[in-house]
């Protein structure tokens, strides 16, 4: 349906419905009084004239109304909010998940604890096993029926899944996802469409019993109904029944403005009749069921029984019990007056009145109605949040969708947007950021700190969580996407990556100088980078220089690599930021957003298989037709062997470099790759780290870019560690691609050595960069066993 700009919001409209009944009775009475008999012939003539004129006007008027009714009702279409869903959680034997996380996911998906579990949407926990009654749901790749199963979790892993009650083992089950946002139409109406054939029969009959008993037979208006209503109201001494038919009520809400004039009543009646002439009763009733106003959630009007069912009971309409249907039907009379959450007593009385009407008309037996009347309202204490839960992430979703859709379509087309968000990770990330920043402030680093965090799946590039503000409920500036800040040493791994790509010149054991240097800048001034500790460290290996984040060594190396090459490489890794080609770029004088940093490191973490980060997997129409899909696409990086070697080097940052406090913060030992970043005057703190499955970037600083007392390891790394200490994770994948391999080398000289020799460390090399010299100890060992390296070399020579 198309709404004029002057339309009153639905909320106001139907809230008036309760009053409508009284007003109408009054109107009728008044018009009765007004009929005074005509006595003179003059008056007769005048009457005839007027009748003639009005007939002459009436016919075109009816034609006009008829046009309106048919065109609007024919092409009727409600503005439907789009729904944004989190990712559907796949459960399967072997899946890594803690009991606490499964519970979080269930709660966020709107599941309720219940014993016994008897309806879809319920679950219970006994010991280490969850019994879940999964709702029917249309996933992005197909619809699935309701299913009941038991999941047993042991050691943070799904041990098995069995169907209930037959005990059949299931290989795979998934939860319907949490709804994380609705994108509303301008009219701020919330609605879930239902089809007449899917609604409970009691709703159809019950509505008629209460609102319009003669619905089946009347032609749109019902004089008998009006009379009965008037009588009933007189008898009761108050308005208990309305005289408008369902058709009239629909017409009023659908086509007309809401002033209560005689003219409007007149139009309403004619249009109701016209509607009945053109459309079957079932279609009229279906429109009514989807149109009627039944509540208000904040700024959003709840329209139709489908949405009301979710709003009051958090259950789909088809699952409601008679007493619940009775409550909703009762609300037609006045959704705010009988609001069951605000006025439970009134609502209860109204519901029982409706139940009595059910019994009176034989829809329920007396005892059934009696029993239903004694039950409580059963309304959930608060409606499930329909607003946006995760602002930063939804912001990202909107950004991705904006490439394809107009905002207008998102607000009116009832699209289903399937995203990649993992609610349990998102919740943890939010907490990690909020409590982490508070702790930093308590430690006296700086006031007014802000932070951002992005978590993505390494292999698929799917964004699992995003935090854009220390207060996750705030929806303003999203730092994860929009805060462009210098990245400091976060850039260094790329300098070393370029070096490793030059395998003729560099390996991780190549020695470089960490000594003072002075460069002339474009503006004529001199630039002399210094190290964080103020010292120079002489001759160091590439590995040491990277893990300890030495500035002088990095700039020297960078000058050999070329700043333009570095900038090209950043772009190759998926970031298109403009960067000035100055040597300070080697130390991170590049402004990037946390999301862009995540993109760069996703490529590294995935062994050089870049995947554009995505937050949306698919978008479907209301009816389930796929509009767009964002499939997984890989863009392999060149020289992946160098990326493999770099991944190892970054594990050493955590093992013995600037991030060596990380394992202690995590309280766990695992092989993790990471890099800290700090900018001049401690304005920005960065940490980027990845496990086998997740890459996460955290940033801490001040919005005004003032010194904040933060360093990579004293701030952002703490946030990162707080998140990962609550997540099961696995060590990074250090298997080398073709053209790179592991060798035992002497820690000090960098010479090849035997694995049992003193000072032996195992380090990966890009083919062609392996050391040529070997320690005497290696020769000793080779007598006993053919070395791995020898085998390789033998093959190469062949």
């Amino acid at each position, binding site marked *: 349906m198309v709404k004029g700009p002057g339309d009153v919001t639905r909320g106001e409209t139907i809230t008036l419905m309760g009053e409508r009944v009284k007003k109408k009775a009054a109107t009728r009475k008044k018009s009765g009084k007004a009929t005074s008999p005509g006595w003179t012939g003059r008056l007769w003539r005048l009457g005839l004239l007027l009748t003639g004129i009005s007939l002459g006007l009436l016919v075109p008027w009816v034609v006009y109304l008829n046009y309106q009714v048919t065109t609007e009702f024919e092409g009727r279409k409600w503005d439907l909010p789009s729904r944004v869903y989190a990712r559907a959680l796949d459960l399967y034997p072997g899946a890594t998940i803690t009991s606490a996380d499964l519970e979080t996911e269930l709660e966020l998906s709107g599941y309720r604890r219940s014993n016994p579990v008897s309806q879809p949407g319920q679950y219970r926990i006994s010991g280490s096993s969850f019994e879940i009654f999964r709702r029917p749901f249309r996933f992005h*790749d197909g619809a699935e029926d309701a299913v009941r199963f038991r999941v047993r979790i042991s050691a943070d892993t799904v041990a098995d899944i069995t169907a209930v009650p037959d005990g059949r083992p299931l290989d795979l089950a998934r939860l319907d996802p949490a709804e994380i946002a609705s994108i509303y139409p301008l009219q701020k109406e919330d609605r879930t469409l239902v089809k007449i054939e899917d609604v409970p029969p009691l709703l159809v009959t019950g509505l008629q019993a209460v609102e319009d008993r003669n619905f089946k037979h009347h032609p749109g208006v019902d004089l008998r109904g009006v009379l009965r209503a008037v009588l009933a109201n007189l008898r009761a001494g108050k308005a208990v029944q309305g005289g408008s038919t369902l058709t009239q009520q629909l017409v009023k809400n659908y086509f007309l403005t809401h002033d209560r004039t005689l003219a409007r009543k007149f139009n309403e009646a004619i249009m109701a009749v016209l509607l009945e002439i053109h459309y079957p009763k079932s279609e009229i009733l279906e429109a009514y069921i989807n149109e009627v106003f039944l509540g208000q959630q904040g700024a959003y009007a709840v329209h139709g029984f489908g949405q009301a069912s979710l709003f009051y009971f958090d259950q789909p309409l088809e699952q409601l019990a008679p007493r619940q249907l009775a409550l909703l039907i009762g609300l037609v009379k006045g959704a705010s007056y009988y609001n069951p959450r605000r006025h439970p007593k009134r609502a209860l009385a109204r519901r029982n009145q409706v139940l009595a009407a059910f019994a009176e008309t034989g829809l329920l037996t007396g005892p059934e109605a009696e029993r239903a009347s004694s039950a409580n309202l059963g309304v959930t204490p608060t409606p499930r949040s329909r607003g946006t839960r995760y602002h930063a992430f939804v912001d990202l979703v909107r950004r991705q969708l904006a490439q394809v859709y107009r905002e207008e379509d998102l607000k009116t087309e009832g699209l289903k947007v399937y995203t990649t968000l993992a609610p349990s990770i998102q919740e943890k990330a939010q907490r990690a950021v909020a409590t982490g920043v508070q702790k930093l402030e308590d430690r006296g680093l700086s006031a007014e700190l802000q932070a951002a965090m992005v978590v993505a799946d390494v292999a698929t590039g799917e964004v699992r969580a995003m935090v854009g503000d220390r207060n996750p409920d705030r929806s303003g500036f999203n730092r994860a996407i929009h805060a462009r800040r210098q990245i400091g040493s976060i850039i260094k791994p790329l300098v070393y990556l370029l070096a490793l790509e030059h395998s003729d010149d560099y390996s991780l054991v190549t020695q470089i100088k960490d000594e003072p240097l002075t460069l002339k800048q474009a503006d004529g001034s001199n630039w002399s980078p210094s190290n964080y500790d103020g010292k120079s460290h002489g001759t160091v290996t590439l590995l040491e220089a990277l893990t300890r984040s030495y500035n002088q060594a990095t700039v020297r190396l960078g000058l050999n690599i070329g700043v333009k090459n570095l900038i090209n490489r950043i772009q190759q890794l998926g970031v298109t930021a403009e960067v000035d080609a100055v040597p300070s770029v080697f130390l991170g004088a590049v402004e990037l957003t946390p999301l862009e940093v995540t993109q760069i490191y996703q490529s590294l973490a995935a062994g050089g298989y870049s995947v554009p980060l995505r937050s949306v997997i698919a978008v479907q129409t209301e009816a389930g037709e796929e509009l767009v899909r964002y499939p997984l696409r890989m863009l392999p990086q060149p020289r992946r062997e160098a990326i493999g070697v770099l991944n190892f080097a970054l594990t050493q940052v955590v093992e013995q470099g600037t991030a060596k406090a990380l394992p202690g913060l995590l309280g766990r030992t695992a092989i993790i790759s990471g890099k800290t970043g700090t900018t001049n005057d401690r304005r920005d703190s960065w940490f980027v780290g990845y496990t086998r499955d997740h890459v996460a970037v955290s940033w801490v600083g001040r919005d005004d870019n003032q010194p904040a007392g933060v360093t990579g390891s004293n701030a952002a790394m703490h946030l990162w560690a707080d998140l990962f200490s609550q997540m099961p994770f696995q060590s990074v994948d250090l298997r080398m691609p073709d053209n790179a391999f592991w060798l035992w080398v002497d820690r000090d000289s960098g010479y090849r050595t035997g694995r049992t020799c003193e000072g032996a460390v195992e380090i990966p090399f890009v083919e062609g960069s392996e050391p040529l010299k070997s320690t005497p100890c290696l020769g000793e060992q080779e007598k006993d066993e053919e070395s791995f390296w020898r085998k*390789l070399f033998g093959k190469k020579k062949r």
Partner: protein
Amino acid sequence: MVRKSGKPVQSGRYFRLCLAFGAVLLLGACASTPDSGSVPQDREVDARVREPAKQDSEGVQVFPLQNPAVKELLASAGNAESNGDFGQAATLLERALRIQPRDPEILQSMAEVQLQMKDYGQALNFASRSYDVGPRVGEICSRNWRTISVSREHLGDHGGAAEAEQKAMVCMKTKPRSL
């Protein structure tokens, strides 16, 4: 070893011969099992990737343990594929990849689906990823390189295609160095 290394060379020549006769002839001549015929489509993937890889790999087989959930999804994807619904097959494989992102079998299946969707760039990329994380030996290795070869050929890189075909043969002979 001699037996195994000899065979692929023969089949390689055979393929080039077949190519000369065009796709229809190739189908009839190369596919050792006739096409089911229910779905009219280019079965290049069978003729030039799966069948020869299977033939090559007699004796050198790697069967990685598979998660039952992944197995189920692979089977569904296989059904979708044989019904010609490549989009659905890709969606199912993507779901499997969320479960096991480094499973060479899923990645290679995805590469083969991309091949049939004629997205040769992605076919090449998935096959290459499958090789990187896979056993780098045996049938799957052969499928990896044959997919890469076919993709390169479609992308106009004939030198690269020939090189990849050579690599497919090496899959049967040696254990790669980095294992």
